[in-house]
């Protein structure tokens, strides 16, 4: 719909119209890439925390010269009429938001849930505390939750703060875990909030339809390059779950289990640390979830000149979209990146459920000793809110 609007605006070229976009997006550079691709020339504001409270998108609103809403479902074929219509000035001017509010002072003087939440919002949106903005936002939202523990808005924004800290600098799975946890709680509080649902789906299974999320990225980059431009770089890589080709998991897969691995020497986590996060934060019977595994080099580097990282997973109480996961070796002899793998899980009616498996990898220590190791693991799968700790 936005491209249609853009074409209409270009055609009419109205002088008395300002166009403003508000995008629901965690990663501003993804919208910047989209804007570059579509050659949008209007400003776009980022609402990464549903600050305005929008529960759906898209929404197209016509606002008159006085700040009064005149149309909440404006359509491109109605733009010309909207532009021609003369609206009367209201008796009193519409309220204007103060620009210089000190939210930290406000929250200190009157620490209500609302004021604490606004402090968190300010840190999230405008990064008043720089690199510590996520820490400050998390602190403020947690304090707000103490005042109002069941508030879905605060729960969602707290999750957003954890995820943004994870993406931008911590890269700590505990932050991803917390994001998943609070987003799930937020969605539980208001299952009809589409934006929150999409945030869960972004990192989890496609619950209803095989929506694409960022399938357009590859086409955008290609077409921007063909125009002779340099595409906006994405600072946070797309995860597998953000692409539609993962939308139809095959729970009847017949992956072959790696053979003769029992004798492989074990790594108990000395060289590689294995972490996991599930989205949503718990599963219910017959409802899918996505498990994100992360393998983090600790005392070693990946050896990319031998067989690639392989992970085998199985479960007695659940169906898995894959049993065999692999990670292609990068084009350098060794590397120290964290490696992410994902799979979907569909739990039956078992009381307890876990995913067991092992990872096989080649690593080299800093002093050049290279080895092939197996690490066994078990991922506990929390089922429903009642089964939690």
């Amino acid at each position, binding site marked *: 719909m936005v491209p249609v609007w853009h074409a209409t605006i270009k055609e009419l070229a109205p002088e008395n*119209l300002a166009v403003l976009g508000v*995008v629901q997006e965690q990663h501003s550079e993804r919208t910047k890439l989209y804007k570059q691709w579509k050659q949008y020339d209007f400003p776009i504001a980022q609402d990464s925390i549903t600050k305005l409270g929008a529960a759906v998108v898209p929404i197209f609103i016509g606002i008159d010269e006085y700040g009064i809403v*005149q149309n909440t479902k404006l359509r491109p074929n109605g733009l010309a009429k909207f532009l021609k219509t003369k609206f009367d000035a209201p008796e009193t001017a519409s309220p204007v938001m103060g620009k210089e509010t000190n939210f930290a002072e406000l929250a200190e003087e009157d620490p209500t849930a609302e004021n604490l939440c606004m402090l968190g919002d300010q840190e999230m949106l405008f990064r008043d505390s720089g690199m510590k903005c996520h820490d400050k936002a998390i602190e403020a939202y947690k304090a707000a939750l103490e005042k109002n523990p069941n508030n879905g808005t605060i729960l969602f924004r707290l999750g957003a703060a954890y995820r943004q800290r994870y993406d931008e600098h911590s890269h700590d799975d505990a932050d991803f875990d917390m994001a998943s*946890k609070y987003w799930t709680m937020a969605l539980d509080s208001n299952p009809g909030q589409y934006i929150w649902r999409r945030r869960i789906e972004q990192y989890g299974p496609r619950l209803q339809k095989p929506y694409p999320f960022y399938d357009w990225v590859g086409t955008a980059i290609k077409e921007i390059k063909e125009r002779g431009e340099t595409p906006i770089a994405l600072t946070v890589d797309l995860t597998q779950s953000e692409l539609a080709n993962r939308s139809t998991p095959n729970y009847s897969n017949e992956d072959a289990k790696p053979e003769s691995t029992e004798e492989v020497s074990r790594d108990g986590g000395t060289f590689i640390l294995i972490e996991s996060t599930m989205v949503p934060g718990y599963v219910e019977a017959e409802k899918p979830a996505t498990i994100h595994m992360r393998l983090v080099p600790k005392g070693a580097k990946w050896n990319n000149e031998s067989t690639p990282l392989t992970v085998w997973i199985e479960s007695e109480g659940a169906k898995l979209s894959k049993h065999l996961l692999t990670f292609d070796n990068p084009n350098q002899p060794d590397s120290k990146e964290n490696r992410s793998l994902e799979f979907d899980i569909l739990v039956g009616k078992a009381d307890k459920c876990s995913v067991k498996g092992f990872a096989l990898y080649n690593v080299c220590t800093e002093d050049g000793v290279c080895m092939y190791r197996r690490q066994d*693991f078990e991922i506990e799968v929390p089922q429903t809110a009642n089964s939690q700790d």
Partner: protein
Amino acid sequence: MIRTHTTAPAIFFAFAVITLLANESRAQTASYAPKVGQPHVDFILPSIDDGSPIQLSDYRGKKVLLMHFASW
């Protein structure tokens, strides 16, 4: 054992749109629901280009097409 974290159910209580008047603040407790004939709530959000503040009321004097969308 690698443990995934769990969550608790929560009861919905929405509060969302923030309106800050000249010298005081009020946190409204409603979802986004602009109504014809009513002022659109003013807001300040960061630009995707450089993070600079974009304020709706800065566009007073012009008609505004406000488009809420997503890039996913």
